[in-house]
């Protein structure tokens, strides 16, 4: 499988809302306050408000993520980005992340599959690609390295 870098995204997470135990796991919501993205073909900022991570901690210990971002490029285009993702790893690593420590991202599995929607002519290529991201959960929020699947 061939990929190429689409962008790197730095996200600041707001205060987690703990919804609690739901029938299929523990649900919590993470507002994504602000952030930036930068790549060879696009760069800009993350708009707060519509950018939230709906998380479900499953009974098998896997964290499922349902991420929605609104991106604004430096030339004014709005892009809707939605990702499904999974995060899991050794209990001690996940606990360290929970304590707000910086952990080597290669010690756990944090992958997302972003999809994009835009109406802006300069970014229509985003509507027709599949992407894969690796995540690195830092204390202030995740860093996603997003690759286009070629």
């Amino acid at each position, binding site marked *: 499988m061939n990929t190429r870098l689409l962008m790197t995204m730095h996200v600041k997470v707001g205060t987690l809302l703990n919804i609690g135990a739901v029938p299929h796991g523990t649900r919590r919501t993470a507002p994504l306050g602000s952030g930036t993205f930068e790549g060879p073909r696009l760069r800009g900022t993350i708009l707060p408000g519509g950018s939230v991570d709906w998380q479900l901690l499953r009974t098998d210990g896997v964290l499922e993520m349902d991420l929605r971002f609104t991106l604004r490029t430096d030339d004014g285009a709005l892009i809707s980005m939605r990702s499904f*993702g999974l995060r899991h790893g050794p209990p001690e690593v996940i606990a360290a992340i929970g304590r707000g420590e910086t952990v080597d991202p290669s010690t756990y599995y944090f992958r997302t599959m972003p999809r994009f929607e835009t109406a802006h002519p300069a970014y229509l290529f985003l509507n*027709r*690609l599949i992407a*894969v991201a690796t*995540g690195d959960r830092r204390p202030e929020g995740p860093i996603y*390295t997003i690759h286009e699947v070629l």
Partner: protein
Amino acid sequence: MSVPIHSRPLMVLRLATSATQDIGSTPQGTLTIFPVIGGSFDGERLRGKVLAGGGDWVTARGDGTVTLDLRVTLETDDEGLIHMTFTGVRDDANHYFRTVPRFETAVPKYAFLNRLVAVGIGEIRPEGPVHLIEEIL
């Protein structure tokens, strides 16, 4: 620190479909349903057959691309059942056909499928669609 993308083969999925059900023009595009009547999957860690009774909901959008929305049940050669879905995009003008599969199973031996993300590279062959599915490591 960014982590590079690595992948490894998970399975080759072959689907057999019956006559399409042409729903026609909807607000989302032109919807065609491809009933899945069988098929096979084969990889180092799992192999078996695709059960009849699934389908692929295929929407031709206004921009010349096609989106896919598939649901099937896989049965492994040791009788494990795996629920598989994928969404994807096909852009014939650019020879681009990629999917994002997901798996759900209750069989302990195949529980690793519940914990991975994957990408499929699709090909339309004379005998039907073939998907080369890779696990994202």
